[in-house]
């Protein structure tokens, strides 16, 4: 190898690399740098001995510390369960009103409720509880089965048309499909219901439907149409429509009489979690029906 170029200024050899006239000096690495490198090798070997390191045909070398992320996860989960146990005890001993009125308990119930709601309820009621057609909006002040804390908790426990023996249940007949009323009568009743909610309707049809309503609908929906919570009959005079507010939707519901289903959650959730969920729903509905509906009900 030929003699390498020496930089005149510093007297250090250059690497021979040059960029735009700048040459790289071949200064030596400090010796301690080499020691750090050897140190890293030693650390790596120690790591192989202590920690899981080498794959084998069956499994791997476990290392003498027997470190395992899987075991750590199981332990963490147990710790989490223990922690949740404390929260569960807190929720189980307090009443629903106490939970909602105490800022710390309410915050705990909201965080538990949010997580449980997201996993179990959001599929039908929407992530924010805003509902969908056929699935009630849980954020407003209209409640088929009652919007107080106790009523919400009860609905959660027993469900609607579920397998629970005490399930909430109601029956909207399929007047058209089951030939209880003719298509014309269903159309007349549709006009009547539109009128009930304060919208303009065909006066002749409304007149024809008066007797039909009294005979077929008033038993559940009451003569004035404000509904009856005992039988889960919705208020027909408000602006909330589970299956749609336009004439086609109303006609369809009188014809087919759809009845929604909500599962029972008793047995799937602990009483504490059901309480938390009830508080979550109640709070996010702005305090259920604290004002409004109750005043207009008969």
């Amino acid at each position, binding site marked *: 190898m030929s003699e390498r170029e020496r930089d*005149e*200024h*510093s*007297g*250090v*050899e250059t690497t021979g690399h040059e960029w735009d006239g700048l040459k790289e000096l*071949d*200064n*030596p*690495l*400090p*010796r*301690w*740098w*080499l020691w750090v490198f050897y140190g890293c090798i030693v650390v790596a070997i120690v790591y192989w001995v202590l920690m899981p390191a080498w794959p084998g045909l069956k499994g791997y070398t476990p290392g003498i510390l027997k470190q395992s992320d899987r075991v750590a996860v199981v332990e963490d989960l147990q710790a989490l369960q223990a922690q949740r146990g404390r929260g569960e005890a807190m929720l189980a001993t307090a009443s629903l009103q106490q939970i*909602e*009125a*105490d*800022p710390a308990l*309410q*915050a705990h119930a*909201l965080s538990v409720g949010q997580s449980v709601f997201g996993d179990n309820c959001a599929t039908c009621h*929407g*992530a*924010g*509880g*805003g509902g969908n057609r056929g699935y009630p*909006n849980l*954020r*407003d*002040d*209209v409640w088929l089965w009652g919007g107080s804390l106790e009523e919400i908790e009860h609905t959660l426990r027993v469900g609607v048309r579920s397998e629970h023996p005490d399930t909430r249940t109601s029956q909207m007949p399929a007047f058209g499909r089951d030939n209880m009323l003719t298509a014309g009568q269903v159309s007349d009743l549709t006009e009547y219901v539109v009128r009930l909610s304060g919208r303009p309707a065909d006066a002749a049809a409304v007149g024809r439907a008066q007797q039909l309503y009294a005979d077929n609908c008033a038993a559940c929906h009451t003569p004035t149409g404000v509904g009856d919570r005992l039988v889960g009959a919705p*208020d027909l005079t*408000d*602006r*909330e429509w589970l299956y749609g507010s336009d004439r086609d939707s109303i006609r369809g519901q009188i014809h087919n009489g759809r009845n929604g289903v909500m599962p029972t959650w008793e047995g799937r959730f602990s009483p504490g979690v059901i309480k938390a969920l009830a508080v979550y729903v*109640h*709070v*996010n509905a*702005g*305090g*259920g029906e*604290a004002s*409004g*509906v109750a005043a*207009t009900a008969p």
Partner: protein
Amino acid sequence: MTIIIDRSRDRSNATGPVSVAEKQREKDRPKGLYKARVPIYPKLVHGQWRWIKWVLLIVMLAIYYITPWIRWDRPGALPDQAVLVDFDGGRFYFFMIQLWPQEVYFITGLLVLSALGLFLVTSLFGRLWCGYACPQTVWTDLYIYIERMFEGDRNARMRLDAAPMSFNKLWRKAGKHAVWIGAAFGTGGAWIFYFHDAPDLIRTFWVGTAPMTAYVSCAILTFTTYVFAGHMREQVCTYMCPWPRIQGAMLDDQSFQVTYRYDRGEPRGPHKKAESWEGRGDCIDCNQCVVVCPMGIDIRDGAQLECINCGLCIDACNEVMEKVGRPRGLIAYDTDAAVAARSCGQKPQHRLVRPRTLYYAIALTVVGCLMIWGFANRKTLDVHALRDRNPAAVRLHDGSVRNGYTLKIANHGFDTATVEIRYGGVPGATLTSPGREATDPLTLRVDPNRVTSVRVFVTAPAAEDVDGSRPASFEIRSGDERQAVRTAFEYGDLR
């Protein structure tokens, strides 16, 4: 590894005496891939700058060791330590100031201020930080002091290192390392007091119940102190620290630096007592500036990367100049421009106000004012309103519209705050919070020193004339403090 920033001389054509450091470098020229550290035996020197360095060393170490033990009374269960980085509680305490993690921008501002201050000082007076205040310098000084206690001064140390192993050498070396490790442990041990209550930690540390982070941090700091201050010393500055490489951008020929006044010193050479000083420089080539240098360089080579501007060579040279009866200040804090002017027979002029220093000073003032403004306008209550987005708006049975919000109220104070909340901007709006009494204004009690999350709902009659949303605001009052949080009331498509 030598970057010479000396523009006053063309070294390639330089004739004349080769400095000792240059000779040493010549000897060390690469013969292999790796270069062993050349041991440096700095000689003890007396004088003005050494004295300042001793004083600063004591002051710096005192600040470091005493600070965690200063008590500061805070209410309740809050820590009574004046300066504390409380990771468990998520707070930083500094006397009357308490910072939350989300206020980390104050720390950022402080770091920016420090950096700008460092830039300004460096462009004016060179690397004062490196020479006097940097922990690496302070601790290295301390370690050299300990070394001198056991092994004597420069010559004794060199003899001891060259001598074969003996009982004398063994106990001196063992003693030195033992005290070094002790000092290192003291350093690491003091560090952890900044993160936990000091009186409590000093007890739990010894009975083994302190947090693992305390032991690990203490061990790491002990190790790095022992290695950096005892063994690596100038290597840390030369190889590890980025600052020597950056500082070249702050310095110019008007910056005060430790300077060998070659206009006065050259041509250098040994001087006998009776000889005349005519026709020669004041430098008698006694090499004292080199032997006292903790970085092992020769300042007569000009400003260089390794030089930390500690001024010890100034003291050494002054001592020699007094002995030979020449004026002090052959090596002094001076500027390149002044030396160059003198060498041409002109009167040197110092310019402290230069565009560079002006820019740094302006930037420093601006950031400083911003910090002061930020601190002066810190509120006890920090309120954020998060509007529900799913659903954005809810229609109620009577056609009115309701929006939900989560109010996050951070109470930075140490007392429970009574907060009044009003909602403005939407006609006929009512504000309620489930689980709380419906009053107007909505009144809440907010716990001290934490964030309280409150669900509130605003109900307003449907407005046929408003498209989409309406700007609105929460007005928050607590005592004399009043603030508005801007938000919107969403009508959605529900009209």
